[in-house]
């Protein structure tokens, strides 16, 4: 199979995000999977460089190896091939116990410390729009060693202050006062890590080890660091850019479209010109 990088006309943005997400997974890791593109990314990693990864579905499937892509973590497709199928109490207890290396999550808004909002747009008490709510986002983000967020990049979403901290980043609120403190201070011996990357539709971002502030790591093809900085409401650090986001290989595209998601549930195929 062709391990050459594909040309830009051969793939779409969803392919690029999926492959970038897959590259965050290391072999032998235990990965907590949410619904959607992350599920495809994890299964892609499982079929390429991380054959020994273990997959946990939030609804209660442990070490899952679904024969076809589930449309949600509660899907009947999750069980087949799994080590154990049970329920949420198992999944969350295992996560709180510290077994999860990596979780993939989404968000409507993110701030420069990786705090994410999936609850509401605008004031919580008088919201412009009520969203889905937290789901397991804060739980996975509290329990896992690393979390990776996959997000649509719009200036209003990369904001100085999220409307509501649904999921904890590197500087979080200490209650009852609500003053911002480093995550390590609050989590104490339960501290295991936090957000390690944001993969947006513009680039890949990482977090400074010391203060946990976001910086731009790679730009997707066709985007410049300055353009991406202009797509953030906060002052994005672009001093540490390492280059362009690695494009998908032809082998990865083959696996995504012919093996994992031939029905195009999450990843549309690029139409050949």
């Amino acid at each position: 199979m062709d391990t050459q990088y594909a040309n830009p006309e051969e793939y779409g943005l969803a392919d690029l995000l999926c492959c970038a997400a897959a590259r965050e997974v290391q072999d032998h890791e235990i990965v907590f999977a949410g619904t959607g593109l992350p599920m495809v990314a994890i299964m892609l990693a499982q079929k390429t460089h991380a054959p020994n990864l273990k997959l946990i579905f939030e609804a209660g499937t442990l070490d899952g190896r679904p024969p076809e892509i589930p449309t949600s973590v509660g899907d009947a497709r999750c069980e087949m091939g799994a080590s154990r199928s049970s329920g949420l109490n198992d999944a969350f207890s295992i996560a709180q116990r510290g077994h999860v290396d990596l979780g993939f999550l989404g968000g409507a808004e993110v701030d420069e410390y990786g705090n994410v909002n999936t609850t509401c747009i605008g004031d919580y008490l008088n919201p412009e729009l009520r969203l889905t709510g937290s789901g397991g986002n804060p739980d996975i983000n509290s329990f896992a060693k690393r979390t990776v967020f996959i997000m649509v990049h719009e200036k209003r979403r990369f904001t100085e202050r999220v409307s509501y901290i649904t999921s904890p980043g590197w500087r979080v609120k200490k209650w009852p006062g609500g003053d911002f403190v480093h995550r390590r201070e609050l989590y104490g011996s339960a501290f295991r890590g936090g957000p390690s990357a944001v993969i947006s539709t513009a680039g890949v971002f990482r977090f400074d080890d010391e203060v946990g502030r976001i910086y731009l790591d790679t730009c997707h093809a066709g985007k410049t660091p300055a353009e991406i900085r202009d797509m953030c409401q906060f002052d994005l650090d672009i001093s540490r850019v390492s280059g362009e986001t690695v494009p998908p290989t032809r082998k990865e595209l083959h696996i995504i479209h012919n093996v994992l998601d031939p029905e195009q549930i999450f990843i549309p195929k690029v139409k050949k010109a």
Partner: protein
Amino acid sequence: MSSGKRITLQQAAEIVKDGSSLTFSGFTIWRRPFALVYELIRQGRKGLHLIEVNGGPQTEFLVGAGCVDIWESCWVGHELYGKYGANLSRKVGTKEILVEDYSHAEMMFRFAAAAAGSPYAITQTSLGTDIHNPDYDTLGKAGLRDGKRIASHKYVFTEDPFYGAGSQVLVPAAKVDVAVMCVQQVGEEGTVRTSGQFYSDPEAARAADITIVIAEEIVPEEYLRRESDRNTIASFEVDYILECPFGAHPTGMFGRYDVDGAFLKDFYAGTRTQEGFDAFAKEWIHGQDHMSYLEKLGWPRMLNLKANTALNYSTGVKRGQ
């Protein structure tokens, strides 16, 4: 042996009173007791307090129909088939509903505590988030924390007194009047066998004061007791049972039928407004009963959703673009 636990759908709905607290089996768009949700809407139930590990279409239908005063949970939407709960969102905007937000793990642990008879659970999740913001204690601000059915605090923060592990969050047990389960099989005496992931069903059933089980089929107890290790809920934990094939539609049921994604998409697209919801309810709920609903859906649609018995899911449904 018959236990006399059998009731009708109408009787099941009547057990849920105006103002009852209520929870369900399942997970997001899987194994939700829709036949009863529809019947509650037909009967015009009011003032419900939904306490759910996670929400889903059942939340959206009950909220859209004006049955719900309080929703206490962490998530609502239709997964792939509708990205958020538009009915809940609308009623949050018009302040017709109170929402109490916890995290998913917190909700799960709250049910596990209630199921074990413990007053609270202890966890380290969601520290530093606005979920713990004291200004966002909705039920407290509404003066509803009576310390009886609704806990006197949303959270209590404490330090680990045993191992010095630092900040801990105490979350109150989820005290629920009625749990309605939708499962594959129940025995005449109430023994439940679910297949596939059992989600938070065992804890929900045990947490509630009254547990009603809606099953695809009622089977002989003796059949279930031949392999009791496969059963998920014990007979005496179940108060009422009824048989209701396709009772979870439009949500899916492992081994029986898939999620009806097209139905959920139509619901999501059509019920952004109250007028849209009312029209949808008029077409699919009011003036119907479960059998006429199935008749309206029709054989071709239901056969397409039917799970392949070897795979436990349908190979016929169109899932992607």
